C-alpha cells in the first residue's frame, strides 16, 4: 500500500487482454478477468493505487439460538449475543478463505446482511476480493475484510491507513417491567423511565465494548464507520438489542499522510431540497 503517484493504467491494453482471454475461452493460470460488484469508477480508483479486483466472494453463516431465551430473564441474554458473534466471525472467516483461495489480499465493499430471528442468526457477507497488481508482496496470512467501499479503501490507503477486518459486537438485555403501581403513578408525569434507560445503556455499552475488544484482537488502532442498530426486538418487546459494527483500521508504517482538500464549487443545478409534500401528515 504505497501512496506514490499512481501509474496511469492502460485501459486499452487491459480491454485487449480481456478480449483475448474471452476468445481463448479458457482460464489461464494468471487470469486477469474479474467478477466484481464494483462500479466502473471504483474499479478505476482501485487501479489508481495499484490494486485490482479479482472476484466476488461470499461468506454465510446461520447460527442457532437456544429455545426460550427471549421470554423471561434478567440482565443480559448471553445466548443470542454469542450466536451473533459466532455467526459474524464464521461468515467473515469464510469470506477471508474464499478471498485467499482466489489469491486476494482482502475484501472491500462488503455488504453485511444480518438478521436476528427468535431461533437463529443469519449473516451473509458479499464483497469483492482485491489484490495489488504488482505481485511483489505476498498475500497476508489473514486477508482483511472491510465494509468500506472501494472508494473509501483508496482514500484510507492514500492517507496511510489500512483496514484489518470487521469489528463487531452485540448485546441483548432484558428490561424489567415497571410494576403496576409505578406505571399508574407515572402516567401523568414527566419522568425518565430508568428501567428501560438502564437496560438500553447496558446493552449499548456491552455491545460497544465487544466491538472494541474485537478490534483490539485484530491489532487495530481504531474502528471507523461504526454503524449501530438498537431497539426492542421485534418478537420480544422487553428485550433491548444493540448491535455495532465497523471496519478496524491500523496506521501504516509511514504514518498519517494529510490529504489537503481543495475547495470546489459545483455549478450543477442545486437539487431541490424542499418538498412541500413533506409538511403534510408527518405526525
Amino acid at each position, binding site marked *: 500500500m504505497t501512496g506514490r503517484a499512481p501509474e496511469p493504467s492502460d485501459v486499452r491494453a487491459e480491454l485487449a487482454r480481456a478480449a483475448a482471454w474471452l476468445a481463448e475461452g479458457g482460464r489461464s493460470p494468471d487470469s486477469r478477468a474479474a467478477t466484481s460488484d464494483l462500479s466502473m469508477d471504483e474499479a478505476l480508483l482501485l487501479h489508481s493505487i495499484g490494486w485490482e479486483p479479482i472476484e466476488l466472494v461470499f461468506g454465510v453463516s446461520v447460527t442457532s439460538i437456544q429455545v426460550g431465551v427471549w421470554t423471561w430473564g434478567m440482565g443480559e441474554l448471553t445466548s443470542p449475543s454469542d450466536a451473533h458473534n459466532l455467526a459474524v466471525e464464521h461468515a467473515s472467516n469464510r469470506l477471508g478463505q474464499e478471498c485467499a483461495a482466489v489469491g486476494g489480499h482482502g475484501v472491500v465493499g462488503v455488504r453485511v446482511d444480518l438478521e436476528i430471528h427468535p431461533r437463529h442468526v443469519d449473516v451473509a457477507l458479499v464483497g469483492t476480493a482485491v489484490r495489488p497488481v504488482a505481485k511483489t508482496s505476498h498475500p497476508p496470512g489473514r486477508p482483511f475484510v472491510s465494509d*468500506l467501499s472501494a472508494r*473509501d479503501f483508496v*482514500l*484510507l490507503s492514500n*492517507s496511510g491507513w489500512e483496514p484489518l477486518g470487521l469489528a463487531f459486537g452485540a448485546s441483548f438485555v432484558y428490561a424489567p417491567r415497571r410494576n403496576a403501581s409505578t406505571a399508574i403513578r*407515572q*402516567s*401523568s*408525569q*414527566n*419522568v*425518565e*423511565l430508568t428501567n*428501560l*434507560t*438502564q437496560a*438500553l*445503556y*447496558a446493552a*449499548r*455499552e*456491552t455491545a*460497544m*465494548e465487544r*466491538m*472494541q*475488544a474485537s*478490534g*483490539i484482537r485484530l491489532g*487495530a*488502532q*481504531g*474502528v*471507523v*464507520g*461504526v*454503524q*449501530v442498530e438498537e*431497539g*426492542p426486538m421485534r418478537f420480544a*418487546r422487553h428485550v433491548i438489542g444493540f448491535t455495532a459494527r*465497523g471496519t478496524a483500521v491500523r496506521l501504516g508504517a509511514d504514518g*498519517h499522510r*494529510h*490529504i*489537503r*482538500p*481543495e*475547495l*470546489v*464549487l*459545483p*455549478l*450543477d443545478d442545486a437539487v431541490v431540497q424542499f418538498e412541500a409534500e413533506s*409538511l403534510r401528515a*408527518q*405526525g
Partner: protein
Amino acid sequence: MTGPTDLPKDAKHRLDELRHGFFTSDLSVNEFLLVKESGFHPLGFVMGSSIYHTGFQGRRWTKSQELSKLTEAMYNARELAMTRMEEEADALGADGVVGVRLDVNYYEWGSDAAEFIALGTAVKAEGGKSYKNQQGKPFTSDLSGQDFWTIMQTGYVPQGLVMGTCVYHIAHRGLGQTLGSVGQNVELPNFTQALYEARELAMTRMQDEGNRLGATGIVGVRLEEKSHQWGSHTIEFLSLGTAVTKAGDDVTLPRPTVIISLDN
C-alpha cells in the same frame, strides 16, 4: 453536571479502554480524514440517552397555547441525553464532539414513552491546544466532518450545539369561522399566528442558549416541526444549530475552484 458521575459502570469500562489510544468513530472515511486534516484526532464514539415518559397536559379546543409541561419534557429528556454524551466525552478528555445527532425514537413500550438519544464522535486537538468551550466543557456540534473542516478554516470555533423547543397547541377553528371562509381566498389568522409564535419561541430559546455560551453566531440552523404522537394540532417546534465564536485572526479561505461535474 460536575463530572462523569452519572455514567453507568459499563460505560466507564468502555471509556477506560478508549483512553489507551484505541478509537471508535461513526464518521465516514471522508469525515474521518477531514477531521484529521483540521488537526483533530477522533477519540471515541460517545452517546447519551434517556427513555422518557412525557406527562399529560390538557388542551383547550379553541385556545392556541404553549403546552409548557410537554415543552419541559422535551427539554429535560434532550438535556439528559446531551449531558450524558458530554460526560462521556469529558471522561475521554475530549476537546469536543462532532457530528452530533439528536434523535427521538418511539418504541412499543407505550404511547408516551420515547427514547431521546444523542450520538457523536469525541475528538481531541493534536496540537495540544484546548478547544473546550467557555464553560470548560467539550464543545458539541452537529456539523458534519466536511462542515467542521470548512468552518475551522475560516477561524471560527464551535462552542456548542444549541437548541430551542416549544410544544404548541394550535386552536381549532370555530364553526362560524369555518363557514365564513368557505369558498373564499383568505388567510387563516389564528393558524398563522400560532405557528409564528411557536417558531419564534423556539428560535428565541435557541438564541438565548447561544448567548449563554458567548457565541457570535449560530450556523447550520435547522427548524423541525413534528407532531410526535400528539395528534395533528399539537406540534413541537425544534430549532437546532451550532453556536460558534470567532477565534483568532481571519483566515483567508482559498478561492473555490469552480467545477461542473459530468455525472448526474
